[in-house]
């Protein structure tokens, strides 16, 4: 029901992007900042990243949210907006934020030449996803298509993988696309878990090796800490330089680990070193909720769609962990590993809802919570007034694949093109066979 008699947004979209659908193999053109318009969305189900307004209203101007909330309580001046759009009960969500991905760093899993997510060596603190990030990846538009607007591109491998950065999934180049540079250092905690082997000697060797690995990390951290106190080091150690901001709390330290044994010991170790970590993986985190709560350690749950770690576990355990953490008062975000796979991020959150997490908490786990964990929550992650106008409009429930359909997406107030190579190929062959889109 469009009661405002203003232009329907679909037309805007087609007007801007609706050319050369069948000819271009290129990614869509990045949005122009000049597109920033003042728009008032009415008659929307507004999910602002924290709560839901069944009859919601949202105004954006200058790339920011200027008003947002319950339409029954807010009476905006419609004349102040270039466009007023009634959404007829469609849903507005903050743009989704995907943590711990390899978007822009990996193009084809089994083609090595397209890999830029792992450096050789053990301690790679200083290597940066920032400059390897490929804005022209064919994969990124397909992820955007499902509502992911920001992603943390994260190095992998080694004991310390390097530094991640947070990117808007739209832009001409990495400088243009980056939202937060070098936001965190990623540590793969040396697990102390011993694997079953046929003979005991191998197990003893494993214990020794595990301990050695732990010692190496411990001395690295100790020396990096000492180095950080030097006013003018006699020589520059790039690995230690990258750690400086971690020690003063200006850069996150992400610790990737899953087993309860390792989670407990990694938290304690970094606590002794004055570092408050973000736990990534954390499959056993639910066993340590009081520790996590007491030390305010947040968790990035990588993949809700996974098998339990152990045969004895509740068969649905990974689906239930978000609700368990929520009920225990532990902060967490839901993420989805990989790059092309990230387009299913919302559905991971949907499964968590099926297994006890509230809808608003599930949305928060892929919007406001990741923003908070990434330290970008002052400007994005929610749709409260003053925040970035980074948002998506879905025809139906975003978390449910049968109804999720993103019709429009905005990053900092500019509408972005949702076209992608897959849509192009779809149209190309529907045309070839002269089939009708349903």
């Amino acid at each position, binding site marked *: 029901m469009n009661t405002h008699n203003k232009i329907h947004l679909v037309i805007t979209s087609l007007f801007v992007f609706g050319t050369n659908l069948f000819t271009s193999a290129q990614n869509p053109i990045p949005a122009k900042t000049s597109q920033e318009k003042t728009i008032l969305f009415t008659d929307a189900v507004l999910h602002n990243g924290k709560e839901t307004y069944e009859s919601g209203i949202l105004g954006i101007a200058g790339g920011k949210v200027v008003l947002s909330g319950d339409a029954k309580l807010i009476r905006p001046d419609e004349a102040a907006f270039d466009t007023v759009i009634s959404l007829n009960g469609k849903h507005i969500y903050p743009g989704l934020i995907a943590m711990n991905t390899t978007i822009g760093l990996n193009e084809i899993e089994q083609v090595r030449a397209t890999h830029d997510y792992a450096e050789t060596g053990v301690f790679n603190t200083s290597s940066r996803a920032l400059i390897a990030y490929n804005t022209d990846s064919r994969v990124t538009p397909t992820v955007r298509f499902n509502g992911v607007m920001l992603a943390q591109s994260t190095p992998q491998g080694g004991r310390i993988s390097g530094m991640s950065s947070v990117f808007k999934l739209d832009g001409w180049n990495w400088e243009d696309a980056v939202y937060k540079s070098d936001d965190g250092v990623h540590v793969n905690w040396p697990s102390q878990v011993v694997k079953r082997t046929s003979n005991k000697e191998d197990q003893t060797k494993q214990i020794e090796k595990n301990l050695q690995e732990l010692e190496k990390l411990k001395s690295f951290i100790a020396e990096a800490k000492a180095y950080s106190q030097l006013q003018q080091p006699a020589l520059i150690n790039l690995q230690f330089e990258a750690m400086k901001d971690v020690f003063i709390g200006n850069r996150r330290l992400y610790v990737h680990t899953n087993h309860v044994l390792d989670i407990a010991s990694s938290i304690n170790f970094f606590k002794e070193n004055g570092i408050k970590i973000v736990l990534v993986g954390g499959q056993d985190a639910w066993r340590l909720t009081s520790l996590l709560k007491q030390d305010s350690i947040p968790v990035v749950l990588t993949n809700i769609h996974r098998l339990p770690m*152990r045969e004895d576990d509740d068969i649905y355990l990974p689906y239930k962990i978000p609700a368990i953490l929520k009920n225990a008062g532990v902060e967490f975000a839901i993420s989805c590993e990989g790059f092309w796979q990230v387009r299913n991020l919302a559905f991971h959150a949907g*499964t968590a809802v099926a297994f006890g997490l509230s809808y608003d908490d599930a949305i928060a786990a892929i919007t406001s919570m990741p923003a908070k964990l990434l330290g970008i929550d002052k400007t994005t992650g929610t749709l409260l007034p003053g925040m970035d106008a980074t948002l998506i409009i879905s025809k139906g429930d975003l978390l449910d694949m049968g109804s999720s359909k993103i019709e429009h997406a905005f990053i900092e107030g500019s509408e972005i093109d949702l076209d992608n190579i*897959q849509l192009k190929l779809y149209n190309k062959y529907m045309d070839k066979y002269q089939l009708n889109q349903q």
Partner: protein
Amino acid sequence: MIKKFLLATLFAIYGIAYCQPSHFPLNGVRDERPVYYAFKNCTIFRPGGDTLKNAYLLIKGDRIEAIGQNITIPSGTVVYDLSGKFIYPSFIEPFTSYGMPAASKPERQASPQYTSERSGSYSWNEALKSEVDAYKLFSTQPDSGKNLRDAGFGTAISLVRDGVARGTATAVSLAPISVHQSIIKDKVAACYSLNKGTSTQDYPGSQMGAIALLRQAWYDSQWYEKGGKDLYNDISLEAWNSNKTLRQYFEVSDKQMALRAQKIGDEFNIKFIIKGAGDEYQRLAEIKKTGSTFIIPVNFPENYDLSDPYTSLNVSIGVLKHWELAPFNAYLLDSAGISFALTADGLKDPKEFIKQLRIINRTGFDRQKILQACTTIPARIFGIEKETGDLKKGMLANFIIVSGDLFDPESELMENWTAGKRNVLKDATTPDYNGMYTLFLGRLPGKQLLIEEKGPGNISAFMVHDSSRTAVTISISGKSIMLFVNDTISSNDDFYRLSGNMISQNPITFEGTGTNKKGQWFNWKAAWDSIPAVAENGEEKSETLERGTIWYPNKAYGRIAIPQQEQVIIRNATVWTNESDGVLKNTDVLIKAGKIQAIGQNLDTIGCRVLDGTGKHLTSGIIDEHSHIAITGGVNECTQSVTAEVRIGDVLNSEDLNIYRQLAGGVTAAQLLHGSCNPIGGQSGLIKLRWGVAPEKLKIAGASGFIKFALGENVKQSNWGDNYNSRYPQSRMGVEQIYYDAFWRAREYEHTWKNISKGSNTPRKDLELETLVEILSSKRFVTTHSYQQGEINMLMHVADSMGFKLNTFTHILEGYKVADKMKAHGVGASTFSDWWAYKYEVIEAIPYNGAIMDQMGIVVAYNSDDAEMARRLNQEAAKAIKYGGLSEEEAWKFVTLNPAKLLHLDDTMGSIKVGKDADVVLWNHNPLSVYAIPLYTFVDGICYYSKVDDDALKIQNENERARIIAKMMAKKESDKGSEQMATEDEPEVKHCINKEDLNP
């Protein structure tokens, strides 16, 4: 010193026993000893007869001469008095590599090895070593031989544990005699396994490959005998044929493999002797049905160190339950009437064997039967019962002397005589010195002397005065004794140095002379008085062990009994029929005798369990067209380009927890596919998810046969690393040629068999080509892993020109580009909803693929190819709505009716229709919703999963876990034995040689 000398002498005397046959040239003077040995006053246990008390055993040379209570001792007899001792036959070790050369595995090369590198006209496959004869390789090994003798063994069945066909085993004496005299029987059995051992040849790379190799070799041996030998020479097949009359002996590594082994045996009318793994009790009924004889180990799991609650999470309920139940294996096998012998194989030290027998005895298993399982039964199994295994006149003088009843934990194994040769652990003829003695020193009043003997040579003594003790230095050697007594107790500040001899054995009495501190000499005497009272702590040790319950399967989420068929009515549900009726609201469905009996409203509920379906959705079960769960020992036989002979159905693992997890995702049936690493892979297994049953019972009876083909990067080995660039094909060009070549060979094979002329030799039966002939004659159907349009097109041309139809393209991510051609060929598609970008050939994969193909009239399914995603296939189906705008009903068919059609199962599955199998799921929401969860999953009208039941099973899991851990912790307190670390289970590796094998 004297004692040491004596032992050395003893060894020297019997050591000569490494003598040789008497006609061999001798350097020196003949030393044969034509004397008898008699053992008197002992209890003689005969597994095949009565136990004799106060009996005699008379031996001469290597044989038993007489046995009984009233026998005449001839002159020329050495007589040993064994008062109070027990004699048993020495044990037979039925599974060992004693005396075999140590196997050394050549280092595997980085690049693959497709052909045998053996020189000589042996089998084409290095893992077939049927020509190996253990008796020809046998040499005596003094150390390990002594070790086995010290454990009580007198005879061994020895084999070379290497290869899928291992040649023959031999029966050897463990006596310290010459190699020439050691062989009791040269060939006792032909041996097999599913482990290729030291072979560096790639094939077989999987367990199903090993099974195929064995089956083919059996057929080859038959063909070779009937004429193949005229064409070429094969030493291995020749040996195979000459070994056919022997017993057939198969080593397996778990109970399911035991079932697989005997299934091979059944094909060739062979009953195997199966060397098991000790977990046979977990599938007792099926094990019994094999009719095989078993050799079972007694290496029960050690306690786990569970003191750390974190690391103890690594130990699963299945592992804990096996820890508790393993000792009961023998008892349970016997109760089921299964014949078996016991082996020390797997024990860290064979000397633990007797200790383990005592544990078995505590499970309630009869002593006589335990001893038979170590003596007469193995002798009979391997056909050496006339030689050994019992104590009868004429048999080998193989017997052990035990200080008391073997099953008494305090009893010690003292001597083991093998082939009449003595082996001493503790001289059985010397008395037991333990006891309280009265010691008279000169004219002093008698003092109390306590002598304790804790093992051979480990003697200590104490002066006892009231409750205090003073250590006394003691040394006993042979019959002489020395004592040094420092008398601090009686406060007369004196010491005594005593030397003497034993003058009587019954009771033990020592006499001699000694001096005191002042150097005065006196006579002394010590006489055995009584057995000192000791604190009773041995009682607990002989208590009967408490037995836990066996679950099916014996791990988390197992059940005490497998669920049974029910008569159930689902009342007032929204029913997704997948038929022309569409989705019916407020409808009842009656399931009975495993079938859907009625669909309607207000159906009669008499005699039914009623499930309220109000607000819930009932669908037919999800069918996963492409799955790799429930498979053991590799899903790929990657090692050749064509492996049509291998069968997933041979290696089903019905205990994969993913079966249960997927029931909880609404899956009721699946096609278990071979992997995709070769153009023609192996045959599929079509199963229903019947959690708890034995592997064979997973199979869908009467289902069509399918086989996996694969195209593109995987079969070209594009992503296998730089060492894999030699196998044909390396390009899509070669892939086509592989098919034409294979099918032309198959045609020729078919022709050969159809045109056998009289008098000519029977052609060779070829399992690979036979399978291809089935494809050509539309008796087996092809599911092809495929991505790019070019190769899809190519394979349809191959099929058209060879005269058969492809059944299904799986993955088929570029199917949308050739959907018109696929439609024309009549092939179906089983695809992913939205996968792409994982390899070069999928860069143009699109999530609209399913929808386009569906609109083009192709039967389309969504599959998982992934154990996790399989339990969310309902969500995947919903993506066909998102991408391509299918209706809910059509999308739902992508995971139910359409895969049923692709698998030719749609006459019994895939929809809710009267008469079809009652494979149904009751969901809490619209099944296509991300919020949908199955509440009940029925297969054949049997409720294998329900949310209510799952809650109960979780409690059962927790309770069982807590109970066994408490038991283990209590045991940790009491027996301080060695423990094993609580390590993390490695998930079963589902690939053969490299990680690429599991790639989609």
